């Protein structure tokens, strides 16, 4: 069974600071997704990482994938309040397996 672990599960950070969210998974996969979920809303696709070494950036968010280490990171640069949300990584196995999510709160 493919297991996906995210850490931290909760993150409070000040505006302007940098931080990284980690996503580890248990079996080989070449496709990993990052989603954002705002309170009471559905999931919004952020990134699709398709191969080892893949790096994608959108605004203050940058995601990377190391398939050999079975690790993906979501790096936040100079956080702003609008980034407050829950971030999920999801790994493609037979189906899409989600982590528990990282609840991010960016404070002034």
């Amino acid at each position: 069974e493919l297991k996906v672990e995210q850490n931290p599960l909760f993150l409070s950070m000040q505006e302007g600071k940098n931080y990284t969210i980690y996503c580890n998974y248990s079996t080989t996969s070449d496709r990993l997704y990052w989603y954002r979920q705002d309170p009471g809303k559905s999931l919004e696709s952020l990134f699709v990482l398709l191969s080892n070494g893949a790096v994608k950036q959108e605004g203050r968010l940058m995601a990377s994938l190391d398939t050999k280490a079975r690790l993906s990171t979501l790096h936040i640069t100079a956080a702003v309040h609008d980034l407050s949300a829950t971030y999920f990584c999801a790994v493609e196995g037979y189906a899409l397996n989600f982590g528990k999510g990282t609840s991010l709160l960016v404070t002034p």
Partner: protein
Amino acid sequence: EAGVAQSPRYKIIEKRQSVAFWCNPISGHATLYWYQQILGQGPKLLIQFQNNGVVDDSQLPKDRFSAERLKGVDSTLKIQPAKLEDSAVYLCASSLDAGTSLETQYFGPGTRLLVL
């Protein structure tokens, strides 16, 4: 392009009652998914359809949950009878799913179910 539509958005029922949810995927998307998201957790796949056929329903509690996708477009998910632990958000997603690899899934707004 219209997104994935779901209704109702909220539902409150008592245990042992029945409930049904409806989903309309993005036009042209062959694959449709139903997920259950319990508070504080990531979504868990319940069932996956390819057109109107079931691809995976291994996580669907078949003694109480059923789903269908008639004509390969809209889908309904039913719970009968509901239990307290069924309280969750039920998310519908769809993807183009051309070929053998999963395509990006696009999620609907979800139906929040509370079982009292």
